């Protein structure tokens, strides 16, 4: 799975979903997703609640494996390798594809340990103090936290906790960072800070972000995927699908689908 970042393959996708259908307890939640996410860019998933954005996102680092009864058909390729092939170890997948959740979930340990724990289990051999400082700086948290390294990560404010979760994710140097509505529980100032962080991060990482905030999608993303849900023919639930996927400017300026147009102009959702 090693890759070199030269120009010839920069156009080849980092992650591609090929006809992915994900079901909970045998009833599908999203169907037939085809999507290729470019390396070193930010891809945003938008769409109304319950259309399966989180479900798709979580399938990319095999987080859905932890949910009883969740199954996937189709292929999820990371650098050309099928992540669901039997010989692939989900733990390794998550070491290379990190995730930041909707609810900040720092470990009930010190700020320092929150970062050091992941580094240690990933076999980090360098200087731990240096890594902690660098990760916190990258997540724009160092100035606020440098005197609180010994305090519990849970004693920080919500925005700081979320940046701590980002710091702990980048500390393990994944190649891809998945973010599931990372700002939905935060105030506007923390949100801006996290967006700034993302701008810095996209120089070195591929980022996929789910967001409910369309201005945010415009501000941070290069590519946007719009998901929608339709009433399931037989059952009572809804079934999500990918309506449209394109460059962010195209999606927001000249969408090709009417549903996309309606959604971004706030006519439904």
């Amino acid at each position, binding site marked *: 799975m090693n890759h070199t970042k030269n120009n010839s393959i920069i156009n080849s996708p980092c992650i591609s979903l090929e006809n992915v259908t994900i079901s909970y307890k045998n009833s599908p939640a999203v169907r037939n997703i085809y999507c290729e996410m470019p390396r070193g860019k930010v891809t945003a998933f938008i769409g109304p609640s319950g259309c399966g954005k989180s479900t798709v996102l979580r399938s990319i*680092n095999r*987080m859905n494996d*932890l949910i*009883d009864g969740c199954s996937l058909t189709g292929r999820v390729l990371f650098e050309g390798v099928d992540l669901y092939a039997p010989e692939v170890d989900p*733990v*390794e997948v*998550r*070491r290379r594809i*990190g*995730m930041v*959740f909707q*609810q900040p*979930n*720092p*470990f*009930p*340990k010190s700020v320092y340990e929150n970062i050091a*724990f*992941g580094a240690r*289990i*990933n076999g980090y051999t360098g200087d731990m103090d240096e890594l902690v400082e660098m990760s916190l700086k990258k997540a724009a948290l160092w100035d606020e936290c440098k005197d609180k390294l010994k305090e*519990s990560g*849970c*004693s920080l404010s919500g925005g700081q906790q979320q940046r701590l*979760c980002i710091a*702990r*994710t980048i500390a*393990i140097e994944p190649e891809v960072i998945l973010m599931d509505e990372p700002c939905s529980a935060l105030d506007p100032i923390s949100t801006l800070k996290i967006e700034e962080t993302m701008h810095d991060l996209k120089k070195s990482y591929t980022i996929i972000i789910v967001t409910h905030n369309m201005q945010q999608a415009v501000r941070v993303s290069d590519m946007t995927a719009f998901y929608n849900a339709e009433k399931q023919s037989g059952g009572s639930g809804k079934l999500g699908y990918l309506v449209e996927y394109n460059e962010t400017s195209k999606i927001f300026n000249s969408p090709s689908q009417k549903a996309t147009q309606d959604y971004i102009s706030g006519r439904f959702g």
Partner: protein
Amino acid sequence: MNRRESEIRYKLRKRTASERTLDNGFKNFSLGMASIVAILLFSILIVIFRGSIESIAKYGLSFLITSDWNPVDDAYGAFTAIYGTLITSIVALLIAVPLGVGTAIFITENIIPKNIRSILSVMVELLAAIPSVVLGLWAIFIMEPFLRPFLISINSFLGWLPIFNTTPVGPGVAPAIIILAIMILPIITSISRDSLNQVPNKLREGAYAIGASRWPTIFNIILPAAISGIAGGVLLALGRAMGETMAVTMIIGNSNNFSWSIFAPGNTIAAMLANQFGEADGNQVSSLMYAALILMILTLVVNVFAQLIVKRLRLKY
């Protein structure tokens, strides 16, 4: 909707007198119930203390470190029973804690399919429902004869250690330890299971998302987050082990001759009280009261000590 309409639709905007009385009444009722607990505890302590004054005056602290128990000579010392109480409960804990917490982890983390997990869970609760006298009988007739060959071989290999240096011949401290471990296992398991279930799933996900595999997640994140609940269960189990009477009396041998060996017959404070109160009089009653006081203080000390440990270990989330 205008204001008048809403006044009509909610006729309880003002708190009525009866509602207020009910609130106050409930508060006082809870206060009363809580005080009853405190009053009970204190009156038990006072009664036991008064009953033991005679013996305390006569034997003083040497009661704690001598092991004669001789009604004919009026010589009493509780060391055998104190040692028995401590060794049985502590070793039983050492056996039951890893087993119980391990079982709880096994039940809560999705290591095995869900239906097997729930069957296991029910079986653990059923274990708690077996009356201790039944366990005692089982210990005498089945467990002890079955275990004896193993205990004998431990004795022949490790007999140079003081705690193994007598030959197992029947009832003794070791079978009592095992029966205690069995009795406290369900307490530890079910309380640990409940506190592990309380750990928010987002912590688990957070650990997996940075590439932690199952064991680091369990040992570094989940267990520390649940430790105060688990420790509470262990404490409860320790209390049960120190005070357990029936099953222990049936299998421990009830001997006041002191021996370091867990293969020899011994005694615990609770077993001694149960055995001797019926026919005791005079100084012996007072000495038994003294022993009971020691048991209460031991339990108290262990509790306070454990609370301190829990406070230091606990992770807040």
